[in-house]
C-alpha cells in the first residue's frame, strides 16, 4: 500500500537509503509490488554520505527519481491462495527508460515482479520469494 508520503527503503547501491513516495505512476490506487512510483530521495547511504564509496553516489538527497516497489508490508495475495507479507516497504530506483540506476540489489524481492516484467531487477536480486 504505497501512496503519497510513504517512506520506503531503497535496497540498491544507487546511493539512496530512504525515499519518499511522491506519486504512483499510471494508476489511481495505491502501489503494490512491481508498480512504478516517483520518489524523492530523503537520505543517502552512510557510505555514500561519507564519500567512502567508489565512484560517488548516483543520486543525492532531494533528487526526484522513478522507482519500482519490490517489497510491501501489505499482504500480496497470490493466485494459488498463498499470500506474502514483508517486514518493510522497499523499492529499487530506475531511470525513465526502466533500467535500474544501481548495479546491485541487497535483499529479497517479491516474485510479482516477474509478472510485471521487471526482469532486470529480478536478475540482479539475490533472492525472490
Amino acid at each position, binding site marked *: 500500500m504505497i501512496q503519497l508520503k510513504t517512506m520506503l527503503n531503497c535496497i540498491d547501491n544507487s546511493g539512496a537509503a530512504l525515499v519518499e513516495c511522491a506519486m504512483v505512476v499510471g494508476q489511481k490506487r495505491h502501489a503494490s509490488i512491481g508498480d512504478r512510483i516517483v520518489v524523492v530521495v530523503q537520505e543517502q547511504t552512510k557510505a555514500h554520505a561519507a564519500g567512502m564509496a567508489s565512484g560517488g553516489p548516483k543520486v543525492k538527497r532531494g533528487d526526484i527519481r522513478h522507482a519500482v516497489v519490490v*517489497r510491501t508490508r501489505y*499482504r500480496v495475495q497470490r493466485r494459488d*491462495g*498463498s*499470500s*506474502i507479507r514483508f517486514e518493510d516497504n522497499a523499492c529499487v530506483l530506475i531511470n525513465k527508460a526502466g533500467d535500474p540506476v544501481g548495479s546491485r540489489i541487497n*535483499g529479497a524481492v517479491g516474485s510479482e515482479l516477474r509478472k510485471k516484467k521487471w526482469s532486470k531487477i529480478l536478475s540482479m536480486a539475490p533472492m525472490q*520469494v
Partner: protein
Amino acid sequence: MNVAPVIRRPLASLKNSLRKQREIRRLLATTTEPTSNTSAPPPPPASRSTKPLPESNFFTIPDPKTKQLRTAFAVYSPPRSQPTVAKTTFISTTINPPPPQTLVQAHHDPLPALKQKQISLLDPTGARTALFSRTNRDAARVGDVLMVTHRRGGEPFAGVLMSIRRAGIDTAILLRGRLTKVAVEMWFKIYNRNVAGIEVVHRRKKPARRARLTYLRKSKHDVGDVQSLVFAWKRSRNVLTTGAKSKGQRTGVKGQRLS
C-alpha cells in the same frame, strides 16, 4: 349534528346511507361466509347491523321469519350444498396429511459431504489433515518451525508457525521466516497441490499459550533466522537415512513428506 343536513339535503343522506350499506356488506361478507355451513340458508343479519338502517328506510327488507329488517345490499352467500361438504370430508379423511417435515429435515446440507469429498481428493493419504488436526498429538503446533516445499520450484520456505486458520478445505498456515535479513510472512493453503511438502523442522519445547503468535512481530519476541535449525534438521535427516539413530526420530510426523 348529522340530522340537520340529512333533512335539508336528501341526496347527502342517500350518500351517507350508501356508505353505511357498503360497510355492512363488507362486515357481513366476512362474518357470514364461514358460518354459512352450519347456519340456516338465509343467515340472520346481526341486530347491530340493522340499527342504523331505519332512519334511511330505503334499502331495507323486512324479514318475514325474524320480523327484523335486513339490508337489501348485503351479499348472502348461497348455502354450501351438501355434496361439497361431503367432498371436503372425503378429502380430509382419505388422504393422510404429510408428516410435518421442516426444510432442513427434507434436504440435508450437502456442503459438509462435498467438502469432505474435496479434501479426500486433495489429500488421499490424510497426511495433510493429520499434520494440523487438533486430536493428533504429533501434529504441528503453533510455535514450531515448519518448512514448506513448493512444487513450482523455488527454495523451500522455512519459518515459525504463527497461526493455523482452520477452515476445512481452505485451512491455511502462517509462517514467519527471515530471508536476507528481511522478515517475511507467508500464508500457505495446506491442501494446495502446489504445496509439495510441509515438514516439521523443529518443535517448540513448551506449547505456546496463544493460538496466534502475533507477538512474534515485535522485535523483542521475534525468533529471527531459522536457517540454523533447518540445517541441523537436515543433518539429522541425513543421519536417519543412513540408518543411524538420532534424537530426530521422536515423532512419526517429523520429516514426513506429503504425497
